[in-house]
């Protein structure tokens, strides 16, 4: 238990600190009311707003771990896959839960293919991930624009509106539920398979992994495919939320936030061991940070600078140097406690001194 907690201690502290600032500003931060049959308030809004970022961050953590680099095409991949989703949905005829599910499967397949493309460049051609994914990053939105048929299609129907909002009778907004489902899927995946072990092994030492019978190429391809599917799911949720496919703006620059979330979670961006709960907390931290700045009414011209200052602060707090300092301090305190304890039980000899 303490071991599991230790990994997320720093990111969690940072997140709680931000939440605390909000509560101090006004305790109404915690208010939750019932709107349209679902819970509404700051906390639900944060969980709702962070959906896409959390899902993409999960995939990004795996890619970072195995490849030692980052995929900067995630927002663009989500834009392409959601464009495909809409076209598939239109092709399937009348919108129903089944046709939405079918279109989602199609868009996930496209996401997997795009992930495979990125993964091939990285794993087989050994191109730096950031450079390899730069290709889609640059060209992708134009591709999505063409898939859209050069318009911004609207998505107005009962099913997708419920997916992006509230299903009648369910008291929690659907995107929040979907986030939990995705996290649960990964938890099960890690439990049942060797995905975590293989990913980390490849990230720590490719040669050693190969000597132990793990094929680094396959593992890298796999994590990129997983990230592609994560992007497809995030794009799907985003387009259901927005009810319009805006190929220019959809999840624009979410890659930067996702990379930041991975880093905030205490993950080394050069790969190796990863801490998925930390990264997820990091993603929520970014969402909370964005909303905190708005809540404090920071003026629009200053908001970027203030955000940057906050991020520097957060990064320093969660940096290895500060962590080891904390560890040392904790060691000292523990040592002292031990000493005083032994002093106490040591008998009357030291008590006089």
């Amino acid at each position: 238990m303490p071991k599991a907690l230790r990994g997320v201690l720093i990111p969690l502290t940072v997140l709680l600190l931000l939440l605390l600032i909000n509560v101090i500003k006004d305790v109404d931060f915690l208010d939750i009311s019932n709107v349209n049959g679902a819970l509404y308030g700051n906390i639900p809004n944060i969980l709702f707003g962070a959906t896409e970022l959390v899902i993409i961050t999960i995939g990004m953590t795996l890619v970072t771990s195995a490849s030692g680099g980052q995929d900067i095409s995630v927002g663009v991949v989500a834009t392409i896959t959601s464009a495909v989703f809409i076209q598939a949905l239109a092709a399937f005829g009348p919108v129903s839960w089944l046709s939405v599910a079918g279109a989602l499967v199609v868009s996930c397949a496209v996401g997997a293919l795009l992930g495979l493309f990125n993964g091939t460049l990285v794993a087989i051609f050994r191109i730096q991930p950031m450079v390899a994914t730069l290709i889609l990053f640059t060209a992708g939105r134009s591709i999505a624009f063409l898939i859209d048929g050069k318009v911004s299609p609207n998505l107005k129907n009962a099913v997708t509106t419920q997916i992006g909002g509230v299903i009648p009778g369910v008291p929690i907004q659907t995107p929040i539920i979907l986030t939990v489902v995705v996290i649960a899927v990964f938890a099960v995946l890690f439990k049942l398979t060797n995905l975590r072990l293989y990913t980390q092994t490849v990230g720590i030492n490719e040669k050693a992994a190969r000597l132990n019978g793990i094929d680094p190429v396959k593992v890298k391809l796999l994590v990129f495919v997983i990230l592609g599917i994560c992007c497809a799911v995030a794009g799907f949720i985003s387009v259901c939320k927005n009810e319009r496919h805006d190929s220019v703006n959809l999840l624009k620059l979410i890659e930067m936030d996702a990379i930041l979330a991975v880093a905030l979670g205490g993950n080394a961006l050069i790969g190796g061991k990863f801490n998925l709960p930390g990264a997820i907390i990091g993603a929520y931290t970014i969402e909370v940070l964005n909303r905190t700045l708005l809540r404090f009414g920071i003026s629009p011209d200053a908001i970027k600078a203030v955000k940057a200052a906050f991020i520097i602060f957060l990064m320093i707090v969660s940096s290895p140097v500060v962590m080891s300092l904390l560890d040392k301090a904790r060691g000292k305190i523990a040592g002292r406690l031990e000493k005083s304890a032994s002093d106490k039980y040591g008998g009357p000899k030291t008590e006089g001194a």
Partner: protein
Amino acid sequence: MKKVFAIVIVLALVFALAACSGGGGSSAAPADTGSAAPVDEGSGGGASGEAIKVGIVNLPPEESGYRQANVEDMNEVFSAANGYDAKQSNAADNSEQIAAAEGYIRDGVDYLLISAANATGWDGVLASAKEAGVTVFLFDRFIETDESNYQAALVSNTYEEGQTAVDWLLGQGLDAYNVILIRGQIGSAAEIGRSDAVEKADEAGDLTIVADGTGGDTWSDVEARKVVEAAITGGVDFNVIYAENDGMAQGAVKALDAAGISHGKGGDVIIMGFDFNRFALREVQAGNWNYDGQCNPRQASKIAEWIQTIESGEEPPVGTVYLDEIGVDTDSITEDDILERGINEDPGVVESVNEAA
């Protein structure tokens, strides 16, 4: 040995490249007159005998819905069928744009139309255009240069757009106007112009800006939604949302819907957007929004008019010319407004599927 080999290969590549580009450059001029001419005769030449050569330096259509409409409008008006031999290049990068403009001047175009990515760095191009006797028109965006360096500029008056919108708002006869201002990209011409009227009215006490946010550099609907959500959960009292483009207005409306706050005609909150996207105009028509302000991307026909003026030997306008732009509300909007002035297609394949369902 390996090194020598590598050097030889690199040198070979360099020479190959130089040969390619050299060949391309030297053959470009004759090829253009040689190969482009038959294309003209094939399509446009038949229509008017001698096509007017126009070079259009524009931004890429996927930049925004506005640009998309703008690019298509240019293609439509300056078509071969209308007697033009027009080439359009779409680059978001200033140096690429400048290279394209220089190429057009070399090709001997009669007119050069520029919507610059950056306002600076164009003096060299404008000078060589002048030297070559090319008439330059700026559209949509200004260039920081002396007015004598170009013939005329046709742009949107974003200050006027903001003023029209604020005048409309203050004519609504409400007791108080508590406005959530959602700005576009801070510092962009549209943001400065459209914010100006609201800020002035705020200073004059005609309305109150109760929350001041931005959709960021991408005019993001998601960011706009967050601005409104922060206002709602923060207990801010508001009855107007002034979003500086249609996408952000839509994001704001999503936040209201999720919070169960009514909007539009007869609702608690007045929704105002800009740009005249058709999807937005449909929202105004349906009464879900109250107002939309036009930002006219159709400069082509006006510039074509000017070109015809010059061709017929008369004097074209000089300096800055503003486009006609209107604002519509739920009562005044007509189907013609949507079809003629709205930009981009009517939304949605999937919506129509829904209607069928």
